């Protein structure tokens, strides 16, 4: 609508009737579009005309500032994370993340269970890296108890953790790809992750939330035929991993979306406490498996990939390379697995039940039930006390950490000498790393926020706990 037309239609907009004398002429000269007013018998009447779109757009050019809520979204992307973005056009001027939508009180719940039951809770914190949570929690508990798991249990832990690292990185690539529109990357990532989950189900009984690693060792020995299964899995992965390079690594769109996006240099990482792939992409070779070996990681031969690009693309490449390295460790685990106990000898800590597979699935073995129910009252008492009461842990506190797929996963455990933890604190890398989201995305485009968040790979189960 042009100005002239608006001016012509002015009389039609006039509200009310009465004297046609206008005060508007005087005001029109100053601002032709200001609302005019005149007194009538029914009070003051305003004449409103159309706005001046040209000047309105002129204003917007300089103050096109809107605040947008992104999320909370579907958990198949990055869970219930809400991002509040202040945009000027397409440029993000401020970004803040709002968390807490998945807070389940895992830390508090652990204080009302025995030390062994705690495993069942912490495995649900970072649900893409359940075995790391279990391992870190058990390492901390064992440090409090002053015990070490037997060698076979340590190797099994390493084996499971590295398989888990593969599946977690695959999800990172898959969900990241999905958010950027690379849907084939998503289907490929979830397909390979499914292979890992099938294998983990075979080894531990469950696809996720295994509760397989327990204080003192692991819940039970690996099933028969694990060797072949793992070998087959390694073959499948070796044949399929090059597909990621073919599909994504050299792909121009993928590179354009990721390169020089979400930049976070080393000093920023250290100040924000960021660890894991993001830190290694900034150039620091900081991997707890190397710098503070646990579970016998010093015996394994593997590389810690690094980069100095500090952008999303470098983080993608690093995750793919870490999958290769994890598979290398898995293969070495197979050679290191020697027969032996998988739980400490101490019957005051080790879970009393011996498990076996019956007609109705996995359960206490018949011989064991026969023994405690029919032969040894003391065994029954012992079983009952250890299962219901749990073991007492000497008072004190420890901090123990492992290198999870997302960085340093630390457990700060406090015992007051009882059979339940006094405090379980999870230093979850997702929680800490998510703080770097504003530093990575402010000043960039909205589309780059997606890439940056995907490269942080936050798992809200771990962030909110």
């Amino acid at each position, binding site marked *: 609508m042009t100005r002239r037309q608006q001016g012509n239609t002015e009389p039609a907009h006039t509200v009310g009737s009465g004297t046609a004398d206008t005060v508007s002429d005087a005001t029109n000269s100053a601002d032709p579009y200001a609302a005019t007013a005149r007194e009538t018998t029914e009070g003051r009447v305003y004449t409103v005309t159309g706005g001046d779109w040209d000047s309105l757009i002129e204003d917007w050019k300089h103050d096109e500032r809107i605040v947008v809520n992104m999320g909370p979204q579907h958990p198949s992307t990055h869970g219930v994370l809400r991002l509040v973005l202040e945009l000027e056009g397409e440029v993000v001027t401020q970004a803040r993340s709002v968390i807490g939508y998945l807070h389940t009180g895992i830390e508090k719940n652990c204080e009302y269970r025995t030390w062994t039951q705690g495993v069942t809770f912490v495995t649900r914190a970072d649900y893409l890296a359940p075995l790391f949570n279990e391992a870190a929690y058990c390492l901390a508990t064992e440090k*409090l108890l002053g015990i070490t798991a037997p060698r076979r249990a340590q190797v099994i832990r390493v084996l499971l953790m590295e398989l888990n690292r593969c599946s977690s990185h695959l999800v990172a690539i898959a969900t990241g790809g999905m958010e950027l529109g690379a849907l084939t990357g998503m289907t490929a990532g979830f397909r390979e992750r499914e292979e890992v989950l099938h294998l983990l189900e075979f080894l531990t009984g469950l696809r996720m939330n295994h509760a397989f690693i327990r204080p003192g060792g692991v819940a039970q020995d690996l099933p028969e035929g694990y060797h072949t299964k793992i070998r087959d899995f390694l073959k499948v992965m070796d044949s399929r991993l090059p597909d990621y390079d073919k599909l994504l690594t050299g792909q121009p769109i993928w590179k354009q979306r990721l390169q020089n996006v979400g930049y976070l240099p080393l000093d920023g990482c250290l100040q924000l406490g960021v660890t894991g792939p993001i830190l290694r992409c900034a150039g620091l070779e*900081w991997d707890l498996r190397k710098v503070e070996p646990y579970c016998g990681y010093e015996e394994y031969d593997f590389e810690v990939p690094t980069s100095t690009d500090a952008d999303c693309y470098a983080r993608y490449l690093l995750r793919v390379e870490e999958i290769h390295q994890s598979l290398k460790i898995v293969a070495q685990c197979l050679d290191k697995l020697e027969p032996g106990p998988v739980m400490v000898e101490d019957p005051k800590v080790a879970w009393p039940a011996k498990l076996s597979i019956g007609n109705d699935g996995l359960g206490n073995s018949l011989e064991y039930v026969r023994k405690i129910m029919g032969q040894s009252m003391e065994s029954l008492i012992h079983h009952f006390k250890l299962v219901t009461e749990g073991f007492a842990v000497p008072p004190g506190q420890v901090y123990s950490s492992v290198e999870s797929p997302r960085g340093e996963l630390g457990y700060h455990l406090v015992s007051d000498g009882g059979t339940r933890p006094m405090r379980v604190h999870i230093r979850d890398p997702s*929680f800490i790393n998510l703080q770097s989201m504003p530093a990575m995305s402010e000043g960039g485009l909205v589309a780059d926020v997606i890439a940056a968040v995907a490269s942080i790979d936050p798992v809200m189960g771990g962030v909110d706990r």
Partner: protein
Amino acid sequence: MTTDKNNGLAPGQASSAEMSSARQDEHEAHGGVVAGRARQGMFGVRGSGDTSGYGGLTLPAYVPAPAQRPYGGWFDEVSDELLAAMRERGIPVEAIQQVTVDRGEITYYVRREHLLALCRTLRDDPALRFELCSSVSGVDYGTEVAQRLHAVYHLTSMTYRRRIRLEVAVDVDDAHIPSVVEVYPTADWQEREAWDMFGIIFDGHPALTRILMPDDWDGHPQRKDYPLGGIPVEYKGGAEIPPPDQRRAYS
């Protein structure tokens, strides 16, 4: 106070030994740290008749025993460097209330007035270089403990590959601790979490708001006097077990 037990032992050995109750009283009178609650009876069962005969048995609350020199390993080196750096920067020696070596980890119990200066020293001093603040967590030792709220800082030196722990204890009525965000920006969310969960007020924090709970939530859920909540669990055939916080505890 001397505990000759710790002399010459490697870290982690015997330093966690519990003190006698007389010694503990003396320790507390000097403003020492209490980290646990006193126990009564033998099996931790309360609210039922004492049939064990051990009901009169009392155990004092756990107090982390102060470590004696030499601490062992690199603990002495770090402590010496820290003391020297404190002298340089005019931080009084009393800033460190107590040093405990337990299970191969060293803990400095710190008075809150000097926490920020200590953190800055630990981060910047070339011989210390604790660049990374790994974790900040709150701990509540229960209503019957004096100075029940603790803030625990785990610092990591990436240069020297060392970890230390700083711990600050405060009363629940005066739960103020200076914020270390200006030294370690990573403490931002972690301090917000400790405020949200324990009600520790970090003075000087840029925006100390709730982070996990809704903004209008009442109370601080991880305090020991905040109930867990829950409903009874029903089983087939009408059996029912009480919610977790009402089940019998042996702890």
